[in-house]
């Protein structure tokens, strides 16, 4: 509980550092990369004693249950797939958006708070052997949809 607030503050500062300090208001790459690095390393520690996942879907389920619960304190609300490598993860009360007011003006700033997570998920999947592209979509705060596209080739 107490570490949570510490992380929330750290996350806010990372967002600040990546976007404002470098005057890169619309360049989310550094933010995404910090997430990637974290996810890549974290998943290795989490799955150290776990048996190998039998397929892609099982891996995705792990990300949406165990991984998500540990980091975002809740399970995702919905996981959908078209069975062709496209997954949509929906979280109706995304941790980094729950303390933001719900308004049109605030919505403009929402992308800042989801890119770290895009990187985090991509990093985790990469280390589990799945090459993906992760994007996010916020239509109403604090709900958030992550689109995970598996790159197979």
């Amino acid at each position: 509980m107490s570490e949570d607030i510490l992380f929330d503050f750290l996350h806010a500062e990372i967002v600040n550092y990546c976007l404002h300090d470098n005057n890169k208001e619309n360049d989310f790459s550094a933010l995404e990369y910090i997430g990637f690095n974290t996810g890549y390393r974290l998943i290795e520690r989490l799955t150290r004693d776990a048996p190998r996942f039998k397929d892609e879907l099982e891996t995705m389920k792990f990300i949406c249950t165990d991984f998500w619960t540990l980091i975002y304190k809740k399970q995702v609300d919905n996981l959908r797939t078209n069975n062709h490598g496209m997954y949509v993860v929906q979280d109706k009360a995304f941790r980094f958006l729950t303390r933001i007011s719900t308004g049109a003006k605030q919505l403009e700033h929402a992308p800042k708070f989801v890119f770290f997570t895009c990187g985090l998920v991509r990093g985790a999947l990469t280390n589990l052997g799945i090459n993906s592209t992760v994007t996010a979509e916020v239509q109403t705060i604090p709900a958030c949809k992550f689109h995970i596209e598996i790159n197979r080739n």
Partner: protein
Amino acid sequence: MSRQASRFDSKKVNAEFLTLTYGALVTQMLRDFENVEDVNKQLERIGYNMGMRLIEDFLARTSAPRCLEMRETADRIQQAFRIYLNVQPTISNWSASSDEFSLVFETNPLTEFVELPQDLTNLRYSSILSGCIRGALEMVQLDVQCWFVQDQLKGDNVTELRIKFVRRLEDAIPAGED
């Protein structure tokens, strides 16, 4: 779910998540700045910003009363480390005038997975901690200096953070008002 929930020690995972994220941030900064001194400054500043916000949570959580002397402040800082980072630094090396002391860490959660390469000996990896203390104390009208005396990353046995009282800050009255 119960089976899965018990598979992970969520407290430990949270601590590691924080450590790893911080590590990723430091890595990014080292890529962004050529000068290591700039990275130290940035980390300190980020800590300062966090400390400014963290103190409110700390006061709300502990309902700590006003400190009347530095020795009490030292105890509170120690308590904060226990609450937020789950480590208990030892308070020691008080100066004769009781305005300067050290926090000695046997372990530093931030550096759990870290080894410094040869060319980064100037990096003060845990600068965020000193910034955090400075920021938090400034919000309760205490101006302090805070610096590292020993660091396990540099081969010392312990990590020692020195804190020195500078002055009490008075509320500044805006110009033109009495």
